[in-house]
């Protein structure tokens, strides 16, 4: 029998994976994908909890998260492209003009 706990565990794991990805991966796109993973793990949590507590607020929240994620994707990719135009690279190691 699969309980809400399992869902939460799964989403927690996903969230952790996403976080670690952000910390470790160098390719901007991949990093962005990791962030998406984090957001989606949150969505999973919401849905699971919504089912658990028995009202729809959580699921409504998920809709908003998805839209926002979409918007962010648009903006983020645009920024990455702009950067690529100037540096011919999307390696996050190259985001290092501004420091100290």
């Amino acid at each position, binding site marked *: 029998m699969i309980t809400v706990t399992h869902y939460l565990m799964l989403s927690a794991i996903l*969230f952790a994976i996403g976080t670690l990805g*952000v910390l470790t991966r160098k390719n901007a796109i991949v990093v962005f994908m990791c*962030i998406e993973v984090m957001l989606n793990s949150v969505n999973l*949590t919401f849905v699971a909890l919504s089912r658990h*507590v*028995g009202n729809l607020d959580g699921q*409504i929240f998920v809709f908003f998260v998805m839209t926002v994620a979409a918007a*962010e994707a648009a903006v983020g990719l645009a920024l990455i492209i*702009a950067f690529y135009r100037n540096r011919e690279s999307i390696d996050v190691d190259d985001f290092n003009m*501004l420091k100290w």
Partner: protein
Amino acid sequence: MENLVQEAIQNVNLHAVMPSLILTVAGMALLMVAVFSPRGKTTHIAWLSIASLVVAGVVTLAGWNDTQTGFAGSVQLDNFAAFFSMICIIAAGLAILMSDDYLKREEFPVGEYYPLILFTTAGAMWMVSGTDLITIFLGLEVLSVSLYILAGFFRDQQRCNEAGLKYFFLGAFSTGFLLYGMALLYGVTGTTKIYDIAAYVQANPDTTTNIMFVAAGLLMLTGFFFKIAAVPFHMWTPDVYQGAPTPITAFMSAGPKAAAIAALLRVTIICLAGIQDQLTTVFWVLAVLTMTVGNLIALCQKDLKRMLAYSAIAHAGYALVGLVAWNEIGLSGILFYMLVYTFMNMGAFAVLVLIGRRGEEQLTLEGFSGLGYKKPVLGVALCIFLFSLMGLPPTAGFTGKFYIFAGAINEGFIWLAVIGVLNSAVSLYYYLRIMVFMYFKEPQEDFSWVTINAATAVSIVISVAGVLYLGIVPAAVMQFAKMAGL
């Protein structure tokens, strides 16, 4: 069925969102205008957006003292929201004023710029008036997304790209934590409306000992900590502030930050009052860390924008002091302080905008040598802002700090106050150094490129007036802040 719809429609109550609605609509309209106006002509858009801001401001003030709740209690335009909305509006207005000429100088006069600022402001307003985690989240995102764009606005300038990207990635990253926290909070309390959450905690006190609840609350707060640049979530700030277009930096350091603090306050005070003890400790540590790290690193900065970025971090720390106090004085102190900070910091940046050259290369300390003699008026203005940032009477910075520390001391956090004042003593050094270069060094160049245009001048004048007014006769505004306290 129909009466359900009826009810839903009655619940909407557009008054509660009128200001942000105005700005949103204006923003969209201006986007259209921008599309159809000739290339490089943006001044009229600037003035139109100013107008829309004014309207929004008037509407907000008109709603003073009558609390409007809308969208089934997920938005609440109360004094608290109104006060912060005004801060955001002022910030946006000042930013726009100093932008027009700046965009021309940077040879990137693009119309979307102003609507984006309006959207940011609208988002900020949602954020400050949101009483539902969803609305707060939405506001935050609307604000952020448009800020990502603005931060990286000059797409052909690498530093600007980089600023935008860093802001975007880290912002999104922190959003993840925020959301996760919200999700867990929802899971524990079964609702996303913060007043219901408060009620739930009231009803079953054992929640406060529920690890899940505590963790959820803290996770959610980290999202806000990121926005207000509290150590250790501050690291994006210097890079982004330095890279972003100066007016945007100014705006970021005032408006969105104020909004974030507002949301932080509302969520903390209402939902998390149950775990005040734990939180106070967190805030205490964060406040000290933030003040100290910000000031210390600022000590050895050469680039003005970067220096002000670190000083912004430090000031976030001062604001947190009020939150530590967690009493009426401290909290309303934060409101007052954010307003003060808006004026003094944006004023300082306005001067930077004028001094700067294309590509922002001239904003090092040496670049300021002898400014006070070549451009006396600008010099005096900048001095006033700096003295205010130092927290010296008779400027607003002093009254603001006084207000906040008063809160802390009143609550018995003497040592926190001592650390705070010692920090501002440290901060004296780097602010004074700017003046050292402005007045005590011989001019190296004649600042011929500095042309004082009306709009920026106006923004500076407004800031000076604000700083002095809030410094010398702050009673009235303090009264407002008091009324706006949660």
